[in-house]
């Protein structure tokens, strides 16, 4: 009998994960247009992004020769300015609650128009907190983890409220400063690197089906790397959206979180609120979303991090200049595919 048990144990040790990667089934489609715009009541730059899908499942490329117009229900038209890389910006215009807006995009000689979307009036109040822990995150091996949480108070009202949150992170990165004598160039400016915090974590709230008026939610988690050596900001944008937008994001959430389990809802195409004016059969990806918005920020500094962390890119006279990591010399290399600049955001203020 001992032999049987031993055999069982030996076999059990061969067990492992049940998820394996596969080769892609086929080539993906390319050239389909994607339009995403967010128009809020914030006194900020309003952005619409126009891009096209590419083959091999790679991320889309921006459409740089489009013309984007904001339409109001009163018949006004406001032209977005081309900011490059498929981004179109509108300054000095902000949404008004209970007013409806749409966009019109002219690209490749085709006119795409969204339905009119109304900005809701209710919005909730967020306050943020964070923790540093040592626990499993990307796999079963414990690691240093940063968790951002939000405490939300939702107004009591008979009016339905639909909320969505998105979280962005912005961290400062200081390149190595090499001493010199004589007429030295100024030290390199700081880099500011922008990214989304755990973008596939879609936090949504449907006030129609819940009496809950106080929420405690995790907004995002990430591993703690040397980005935390410098000040690190997290910006949580709360968007009060309408029911149609909520349903759109709910479908996105289903698709993004689909893990092939027994109980997954079968995948399906998601249709937004933008269509080709002349050809209703053309698939247009994306959505024109309007909403009331509120941004709440929190930041961490080196003093908040309870883990040992050596200063990155610190000058060491014993190390030759070309032996430093490239990211210590070049912001673009450090940022990779992330957005970055040297000026920093206007709200970058901390104690």
């Amino acid at each position, binding site marked *: 009998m001992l032999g049987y048990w031993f055999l069982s144990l030996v076999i059990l040790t061969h067990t492992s*994960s049940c998820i394996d990667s596969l080769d892609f089934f086929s080539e993906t489609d390319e050239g389909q247009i994607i339009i995403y715009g967010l128009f809020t009541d914030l006194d900020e730059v309003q952005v619409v992004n126009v891009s096209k899908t590419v083959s091999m499942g790679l991320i889309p490329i921006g459409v740089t020769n489009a013309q984007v117009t904001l339409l109001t229900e009163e018949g006004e038209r406001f032209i977005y300015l081309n900011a490059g890389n498929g981004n179109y910006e509108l300054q000095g215009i902000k949404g008004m609650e209970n007013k409806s807006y749409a966009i019109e995009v002219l690209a490749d000689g085709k006119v795409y128009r969204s339905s009119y979307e109304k900005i809701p009036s209710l919005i909730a109040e967020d306050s943020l907190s964070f923790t540093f822990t040592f626990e499993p995150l990307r796999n079963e091996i414990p690691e240093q983890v940063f968790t951002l949480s939000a405490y939300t108070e939702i107004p009591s009202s008979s009016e339905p409220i639909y909320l969505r949150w998105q979280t962005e992170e912005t961290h400062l990165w200081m390149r190595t400063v090499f001493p010199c004598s004589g007429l030295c160039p100024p030290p390199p400016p700081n880099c500011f690197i922008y990214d989304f915090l755990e973008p596939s974590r879609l936090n949504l709230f449907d006030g129609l*089906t819940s009496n*809950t008026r106080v929420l405690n939610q995790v907004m995002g988690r990430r591993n703690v790397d040397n980005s935390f050596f410098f000040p690190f900001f997290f910006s949580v944008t709360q968007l009060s959206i309408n029911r149609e937008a909520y349903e759109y994001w709910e479908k996105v959430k289903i698709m993004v979180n689909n893990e092939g389990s027994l109980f997954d809802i*079968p995948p*399906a195409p998601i249709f937004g609120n933008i269509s080709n004016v002349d050809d209703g059969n053309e698939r247009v*990806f994306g959505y024109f979303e309007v909403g009331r918005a509120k941004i709440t920020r929190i930041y961490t500094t080196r003093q908040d991090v309870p883990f040992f962390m050596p200063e990155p890119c610190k000058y060491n006279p014993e190390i030759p200049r070309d032996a430093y990591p490239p990211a210590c010399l070049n912001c673009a290399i450090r940022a990779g595919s992330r957005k970055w600049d040297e000026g920093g955001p206007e709200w970058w203020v901390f104690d």
Partner: protein
Amino acid sequence: MNFSSQYTLGYRFFFCFIIVIFFINVHSEVLAQTEITTVEFRADPDNKKSKYILTGKITDKQTGELISGVGVYIDGLFSGINTDKNGLYLAHLDSGRHRIVFRQLGKRGQPFIVELFGDGVLDVEMENLSFELETIIVRDEEKDRNITNPIAGVTKMNIEEIRLVPVLMGEPDVFNVLQTTPGVTSVGEGSSGLNIRGGQADQNLIMMNEAIVLSNSHALGFLSSFNGDVVRNFTLYKGTVPSNFGGRSAAALNIEMQKGDFEKWNYSATIGTPLTKFLIDGPVIPEKTSMVAALRRSNANWLLNIVNESDVRNSNIKFHDIYLGINHMFSQDHSIDFSLLNTGDYFRFSNQFGFEWNNFVTSLTSNNLLTENFSLIGMAAFGSFNNGFFEPEGADPAIIRNGLYYFQGKITGLLTFEKINITFGGEGVQYQMRPETLMPYTVESGVIEENVSKQKGLEYAPFVSMDWNPTQNFGLSGGLRYSQYRQLGPDSVFRYQEGLPQTSLTISDIDFFETGTIVQYGGFEPRASFRWTFNKVNSIKAGYSSMFQYLQTISNATGPTPIDLWQLSTTYIQPQRSHNFSLGYFRNFKENEWSTSLEGFYRTTQNQLEYRDFADLFLNPHLETELVQGQGLAYGAEFLIQRNSGGITGWLAYTYSRSLIRTTSEFSEIQVNRGNWFPTNFDRPHIVSLVTNFHLGNRRNFNLNFNFSTGRPVTSPTTNYLIGGILIPDYSDRNQFRIPNYFRIDLSYITNGFVRKWNDKINISVYNLLARRNAYSVFFQRDENSSRLRPYQVSILGSVFPSIAYTVSFNK
């Protein structure tokens, strides 16, 4: 697959092959012989005739009950005569000496030399074959059943055969064994239900002693609810379904449960890695009343605790089932049977979600032999099924509950003549769906309680059938069932704007019906089959059946789940209707040592359900807005070669099967795949299974299984796009791609236990010996390195699953 994994697989296969060869070479087999009794019947010398009648009853030696379906073999050939439901047979024979053998699966054959020179009554007691000692004989006695069985597309097995097939957890299981037979498959490991000849799981009528069982799986579908220790046999009608069965559009499976011993008490206990079981049966009143009680409980949580993933370790799975059967014989001609099945399941995945479901089925059956050739069987049953889907954590922990209960009544009369059997009767089922409720799962939850009322329906059907066997070589069966269904009040019927698809936005009005019939459907369901046995080793069978289905499951998951919602037909959800055709050729070789068959099938189904994209099925009072009905098509061929006797028995089955659907809405916006035919989730064109049983003698068996099937269809993205940092896949047509093919090898070894004086045994089984990660599904996630979508496959059982069970039985 890369070269190294191919090498590993090949190495493992070679290793298994060596083991098999070893076992083949070191054991030989000796078949048992049965003694022949000579009986003589003589008429009055003044009343001599050229033909005489031989009649009698066949009873079970152990339980005393009458046995139906016993084959009567005369002078080496099957006579075409089977005992009727009362265990009676009647044969007209030429005067003279005959060799007569009574045979039935799982019973020891009873041969007689009959000197028939006058009418005679020959009552026979048949005894069960002991599984451990005489497994080979089971096959030997029934090895020509494929030729003699009157209708095509029937799979019969008794528990002895079921036990020989290695399965997950080492537990003899009807559903798992059925999946090794031709034409039967499932969506994947861990999905409940069976897909029979390209049919959906809910298109199968599953019965226990002819009482409907709606929920029939444990552990998310890995095991059926029927404890193998109390299963006597099962019969699967996948071709022509007799007219006394109805209500589903594809197939019928009747599982007969064991009856208690009328003479002595038997006890059995099994302790194993996955399960613990207890069984007791015996005479409450000797030779009058017997009972059997069985309890089965899972021990699976320790397995979860050793998995190297915290979510799995924090999960919980448990289930149980209880079976109780009581049989009372008022006389040899009148008896009553009571059976009760209660099952319960609980599954929680970490703190993310969970399911619970329970099932209760009880029935009372009265068997009455009123005259020598007329019997009447009455059955009343009650069933109840409840399920819950919960989220234990999050902002608003909540649980959604569903369920239904039903009353079933059935009366069946059987008239038996020399060459004709007539079955007639009626059946009625009243279904009451319980309201669907959403409730807080914790006291802190702020979820608003919701309650959606559900439907009530009545289904009833008179039926009649006739089996005519004019000669030993020819048999014809014809049947007719007329089913009627009424949806009864109270219920609300939504009205929709004309010329627009039914959606929540096109509702124009609501009609409320307090009582009475809201809508009714019905129609004739003809059934027919014929058998032509042109010699004792060749036969051709063909059949046709038409069936209505008024109750179907609603689920938007990839495969059927144990918590699928049963939904009655309504004004907008119309009943399914199927037309099933089957044709088969059967040929045996080497005195029935080998049997082969080739069967074809073709089925069309009207009003088969399909789901609109992102169908929202929970707490929806107008489900028709999430569904679209269509046309189903299934066709294929099944090939089986089976060795029935010898040191190695088993079968090789190959099935080519297609299962397609197309939606037929008049509105293009709700059509799936633009109304074109597309494969269903369970369309698996090629299925191969090889089951081998090595009889090692001295109560030892080594069994090996191979399973291969084409990967099932999945929907794949055709591109992806980025919004707010979220990479979103875009999917096109439904089910246009397939996951990788499925392949699995299992083995089991059954041997004596520790103590020679005890009747004990050990069952060691290894499921998925090669630890192959067979894909259940695929999903797509952003690849962190290349910022593109990458497909991943999910394996439900991605590793080898060994199990061991020790059973001890004793009696007094």
